[in-house]
């Protein structure tokens, strides 16, 4: 149910993003750079490159949207703009959707660039078609916005948020299956990885490696990922996106 308010909020957040040149450069260029770097690091291990490269490609969009959405919403909350927005006819669903759209649009540019470079120059081979990988990457960028908005719950200002993001991201990356697939982890680590939201998206992306057609595992992991996005967004609606005053 996107309304005019959604469109306005989307445009506003987008304008703010576009004004911030360092952020935009980091947002669009750095994933391509990391892909090139990773392919160089794994030059002599084509099998590992195919696995890690695909996961990085499908999931890298999560990281920047996660960071930028978290800081953007935190600034709005902290500086009082969110309160102002709430006094207008804009509903908090508008704000949520506005944020998701505003971050997904630059993510599309970023994903097209990364996918193009990776399949064009870096010899990544996957069984699934390129468009499936692109769609997964797009879903991950939405996941990033959802986690980002949610994590604003855990901090009162931007200074605290830097610590929350660092503390969340690092263990998450290790547990997600980028370095070792979850089913090869020791029991307790495997159990721990079930609560890492990112892990299901990683599993879904990994399915694209060897299967040309969608598998049951792909669907179930996709379902869980969409569920996580919905759940985190619902929690954010009730906590982050509320009026504090009167």
């Amino acid at each position, binding site marked *: 149910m996107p309304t005019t308010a959604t469109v306005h909020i989307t445009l506003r957040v987008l304008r703010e993003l576009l004004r911030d040149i*360092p952020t935009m450069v980091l947002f669009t260029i750095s994933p391509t750079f990391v892909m090139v770097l990773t392919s*160089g690091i794994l*030059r002599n*291990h084509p099998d590992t490159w195919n696995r890690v490269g695909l996961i990085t490609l499908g999931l890298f969009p999560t990281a920047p949207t996660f960071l930028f959405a978290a800081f953007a919403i935190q600034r709005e909350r902290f500086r009082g703009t969110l309160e102002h927005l709430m006094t207008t006819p804009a509903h908090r669903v508008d704000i949520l959707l506005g944020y998701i759209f505003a971050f997904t649009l630059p993510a599309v540019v970023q994903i097209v660039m990364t996918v193009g470079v990776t399949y064009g120059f870096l010899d990544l081979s996957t069984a699934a078609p390129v468009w499936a990988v692109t769609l997964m990457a797009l879903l991950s960028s939405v996941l990033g916005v959802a986690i980002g908005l949610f994590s604003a719950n855990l901090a009162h200002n*931007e200074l605290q*948020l830097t610590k929350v993001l660092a503390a969340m991201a690092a263990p998450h990356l*290790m547990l997600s299956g980028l370095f070792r697939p979850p089913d090869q982890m020791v029991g307790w680590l495997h159990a721990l990885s079930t609560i890492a939201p990112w892990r299901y998206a990683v599993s879904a992306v990994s399915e694209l490696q060897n299967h040309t057609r969608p598998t049951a595992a792909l669907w179930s992991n996709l379902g869980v990922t969409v569920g996580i996005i919905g759940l985190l967004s619902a929690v954010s609606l009730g906590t982050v996106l509320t009026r504090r005053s009167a």
Partner: protein
Amino acid sequence: MTTTLARETVPAPAPRRTLPAVSARRVWSIARRVLHELERDPRARVVMVGTPGFLVVIVRRLFDSDTAFSPTGAIMVGIFPVFTMYLVGSTSLVRERSRGTLEAVLATPTSRLDLVGGYLTAAFLIAIGQSVVTATLAYTVSGLQTESPPWVFGALAGVSGLFGMSLGLLISAVVRNEGQAFQALPGFFIPQMLVTGIVWPVSEMAGWVQWLERVLPLSTVSRSLTAARLHHFGGSSLAVNLAVLLCLIVAALLGAAASIRRRTA
């Protein structure tokens, strides 16, 4: 008689008190202030001690044996302080700049050398504290094996802390808010970390990546740590890399000190 009179009427000017550029008392009070600020925020404890400790334990489980983990583990123990101290240094100083506390501090007898010294002292102490926790977990729970005794890694972690802090102070001059300071972590440090061989060995990387590894600043830290792991007390490789690292720290600090000044009158 006349001279006494003159002395009474026109008192000799009191020698002008020149403040020393750096005083231990002022440095320590700045350091205490930084430490106090961190102590108040439980998130800071998590990111400084909790997360690194947790990572040391879980990353070991991503490897099959203690021997396979040791190259990664040794680098991890020593390199964490670069990230945490960068984070603490850059974001705290950006905040001081944007909130005006920097102006207030510099309006007191505190010089900018005192300020930089205070931040560095705090970074060194936290880095040592952090490495005590990570090294203890790495050697006991995760079975890290090194040629040098554990305290060498603790000392190197202290130097890494200084490195991270000096980079953080330097970066704080060019960013506008805490968010931008934070972006340097994924944008600048993480790519370097991948190249240092923390996950995949450097010797197996493509030629141009190996060349990149030789020139990136963070490699001095990882190379020092690898040297300390392979040889008793590190040998010449540790000495060379440590010397380069110290030069980098001094250069970053000079840049940082130059950028810290009062904007108002």
